[in-house]
């Protein structure tokens, strides 16, 4: 059983999805999906433990040897990611039934869970697989299901947002496919490890350069890196709350994983950082992302949109950590994946709770909610502080590592800009806090009471995690550090 964990990771939600159709009642489906997601979480926890104890786990699908058959390969990096994704999925799913009762028509509930599990399958598959083409397949599974998930939103603009995301996402995926195709043309292999071994022979060809450019562009789009972020705000804003929470906590993380996997493992750090001026490019784009995202967030009136733009800024932080290409920098980026999942999961779930009670997340509707929904607002406050980077929250830990990585390299101006970026975060978080706590409540919302437990439990689990991992950083930092160390070690010297 333990030997088959890697395939179980994907197969459990994949089988779970069609089974949902057989279960007729929505509550039953919800329970089933929750169990399936919980099982995935257990599987990924076991997998990570196995990886940490005995190193990389390699699983050959159907017993076919690696370069021919599909291989699942789990090292510390994707083990870490699998845990984040399955954990967030389970936590979000906990609140799902309550939330979609108000946001999605009853007859579509079963569809929602099927799509949700498929999307989860796709993300887990992208992360778990060691085969480049398989990445594309799973990416499409997760993308197609998430387009549909977004389109379930009750706002009519959801359809439009999903359509935009569909077009752009498809182009992005196609770019990745083109890149993989070009690599296949040059090396005759699709296995990532094999690609990594064979690519250096043909590294100095225009085909490989082009392949690299296509792959990176495709990933940047999925990652919503500035200036390819334009699909994200609308998609996050108009999707059902649960979908937003799920995607915000997982989808961009998967794209970021692909970025690391392709640059460090497939193309190799030295190739990636010499072929393109990645350091400079990503540093600039990351910084621009931070500022554009944060400033845009300040001007929004829809709180979901505020945090959607904030996600773009947070992706900027991750990309900057990545662009430093030192162990500390990569550790910071990986930590921020984990931490951002915790913060945004809590925030979007809390917004889901507000949506459940009020039916809107326009900022003026938040007036007086500090008294009416104290626990939900306190969660937003704590997660918001974490987003800013207050000490004793996770946000501080990853920013701290990011800053020390920058100072290690002597990039003071960037460090300074990041600090200014944090101040911008303060502005939009404070805007919400001020309205929620210091304004009298609206007369239309006078009957609003605290969110149901189905929301509060996952929200506060995440909030506590925000604080716990901000104080006891052993688990997160150790895994992130070990993962980034092995990535850089495998690549030998990276261009300074």
């Amino acid at each position: 059983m333990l030997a088959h964990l890697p395939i179980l990771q994907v197969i459990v939600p994949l089988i779970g999805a069609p089974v949902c159709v057989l279960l007729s009642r929505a509550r039953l489906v919800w329970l089933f999906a929750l169990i399936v997601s919980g099982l995935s979480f257990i599987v990924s926890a076991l997998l990570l433990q196995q990886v940490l104890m005995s190193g990389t786990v390699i699983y050959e699908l159907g017993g076919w040897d690696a370069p021919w058959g599909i291989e699942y390969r789990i090292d510390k990096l994707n083990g870490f990611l699998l845990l984040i994704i399955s954990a967030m999925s389970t936590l979000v799913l906990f609140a799902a039934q309550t939330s979609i009762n108000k946001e999605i028509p009853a007859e579509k509930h079963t569809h929602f869970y099927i799509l949700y599990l498929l999307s989860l399958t796709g993300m887990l598959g992208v992360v778990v697989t060691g085969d480049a083409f398989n990445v594309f397949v799973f990416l499409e599974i997760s993308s197609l299901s998430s387009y549909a998930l977004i389109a379930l939103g009750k706002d009519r603009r959801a359809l439009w947002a999903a359509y935009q995301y569909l077009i752009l996402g498809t182009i992005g995926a196609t770019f990745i496919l083109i890149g993989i195709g070009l690599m296949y043309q040059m090396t005759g292999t699709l296995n990532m490890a094999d690609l990594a071994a064979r690519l250096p022979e043909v590294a100095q060809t225009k085909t490989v350069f082009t392949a690299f450019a296509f792959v990176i562009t495709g990933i940047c789009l999925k990652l919503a890196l500035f200036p390819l972020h334009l699909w994200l705000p609308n998609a996050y804003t108009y999707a059902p709350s649960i979908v937003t929470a799920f995607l915000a906590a997982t989808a961009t993380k998967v794209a970021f994983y692909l970025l690391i996997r392709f640059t460090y493992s497939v193309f190799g750090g030295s190739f990636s950082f010499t072929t393109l001026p990645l350091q400079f490019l990503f540093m600039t784009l990351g910084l621009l992302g931070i500022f554009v995202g944060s400033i845009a967030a300040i001007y929004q009136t829809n709180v979901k949109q505020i945090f959607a733009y904030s996600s773009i800024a947070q992706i900027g932080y991750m990309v900057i950590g990545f662009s430093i290409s030192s162990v500390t920098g990569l550790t910071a980026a990986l930590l921020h994946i984990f931490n951002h999942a915790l913060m945004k999961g809590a925030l979007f779930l809390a917004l889901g709770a507000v949506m459940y009670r009020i039916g809107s997340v326009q900022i003026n509707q938040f007036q007086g909610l500090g008294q009416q929904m104290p626990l939900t607002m306190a969660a937003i406050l704590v997660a918001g502080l974490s987003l800013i980077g207050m000490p004793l929250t996770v946000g501080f830990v990853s920013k701290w590592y990011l800053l020390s990585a920058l100072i290690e390299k002597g990039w003071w101006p960037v460090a300074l800009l990041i600090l200014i970026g944090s101040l911008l975060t303060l502005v939009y978080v404070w805007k919400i806090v001020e309205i929620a706590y210091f304004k009298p409540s609206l007369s239309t919302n006078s009957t609003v009471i605290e969110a149901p437990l189905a929301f509060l439990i996952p929200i506060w689990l995440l909030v506590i995690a925000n604080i716990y991992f901000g104080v006891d950083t052993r688990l997160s930092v150790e895994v992130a550090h070990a993962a980034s160390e092995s990535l850089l070690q495998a690549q030998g010297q990276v261009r300074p």
Partner: protein
Amino acid sequence: MWMLEIPPFVPFFISALIALVTRGFLRAVIMIIIPVISMLHLWMVPEGIHLQFSFLSFELLPYRVDKLSLMFGYIFHIAAFIAIIYSLHVRDTSQQVAAMMYAGSGLGAVFAGDLITLFVFWELLAFTSVFLILARRTQRAYAAAMRYLIIQVLSGVLLLIGAVFYLADNATLEFAYLGLDGIAGWLIFIAFGIKCAFPLAHNWLTDAYPEATVTGTVFLSAFTTKVAVYALARGYPGTELLVYIGAVMTCFPIFFAVIENDLRRVLAYSLINQLGFMVVGIGIGTALAINGAVSHAFNDVIFKGLLFMSMGAVLHMTGRINGSDLGGLYKSMPKTTVLCIVGAASISAFPLFNGFVSKSMVMSAALENGYDWIWLILLFASAGVFHHAGIKIPYFAFFSHDSGIRASDPSNNMILAMLIAAGLCIAIGIYPAALYSLLPYDTGYNPYDATHVLAQTQLLFFSALAFVWLNLRGMYPPERPSTNLDFDWVYRRLFPTILRSIFTAIWKMDKKLRQRVINKIESNFVFMSKKYSQLTDLLSRGYPLGSMVLWLVIVLSCYVFLSVIY
């Protein structure tokens, strides 16, 4: 032996803990017994490093025993024992606890084998002793305590910075000879100097000690400055600069002491004067001189303690301490008078009292090493000591004109404590070999030869004569209630005045500047609000799909282009 590994500060900290939770007779018994046990324990401890552990990447030696630290360990135990007896009547728990913590910190500091441990106890000394001053519970005491604390903490911070520099230079934190080369040496030197009341850095002492409680001052006079003397003797023996600093320290307080009215402040000045002798000894740095400095520290703790105790008794019984208010107390406080005179004789270095056997060592060392001028200064200072501490203190408190105050001798515990101290003064004076056997070096010194005894007696008689003559002619500065300006005027009056005027100017400028900036910002806001709608629109409007794809193409072509040309 497991006992070995208990550093001597531990019993005192335990005692502090017990003092916190017990009351009355039980507390008294425990507080007396613990120093005795600790002393016996210390007596058995052989030299060497008894405790060692790693912290971060540093080797810490919190318990290192050698002859120098043992000497201070003994005297601190004696001082603590006497002071505890003296303060048995005190019901104020915070004072008792603070006193025990303070004595423990002093012991911790002298047995510290590395600079970090030293720093910890250095700061603990400051933070625990400040409660002894605060316990007076007057506004003056509060202000003095805060000034005291600031200066003491500053000294600790300098020590820490110095230690960091020292670590960088020498890759070790061991507290051994430091020397004045390099920034580390100077920083630590200044840190020690502040605690040792070097000239211009001495005001915390004369400011705070007279403001402490009756019993608090007895504790204070024993530990803080002696720890500093120990630290100097360990880190800077033979540093010539110290000879001159010490010489200045012996002289200048005399003048302040003569005109000062508060008799405990007179003693505080005289404390600096005595410290001067020790500092000179350390500066000369020969075996004899170090012996002299260390034994003088030993004796000073006893006789200065005795004097502070007798003045404390006067303050305690009469509620007054100014020379102008007192006088004629010998009739009603005869025991205190006698004991005070013993202390006065000791500090004046009468033969057969303990001051004589140690002070003469420093003076001999000065002569032997060619510091003739210094010797003369010390001689002058000795006469001065006799004047202000030997004669002025007992004369104005107990004799002089009859102030009409009728008090009685203090409670038995206070008398007993003074009696023990006086007994030690005389015992060591008569049988100095006991003290000499404890000293770090064996020099075979004998204070009782004809020249020493004669010279000292002559000196004392002539200064006594001078006092009598001046007093009869009415030329001796009379005791007047007055405030005497010392160097602390500079930072308590001059600096604040200057700063106040500077800040007034700055605030004026600041106000103008801010007005201008605010105007600018306002006009900018008007401008921004016009642009506002355009900006948000640019950043966050729903872009048509075509432009998104356009971006995608731009990025891709950039990447391809760059990867080909880069």
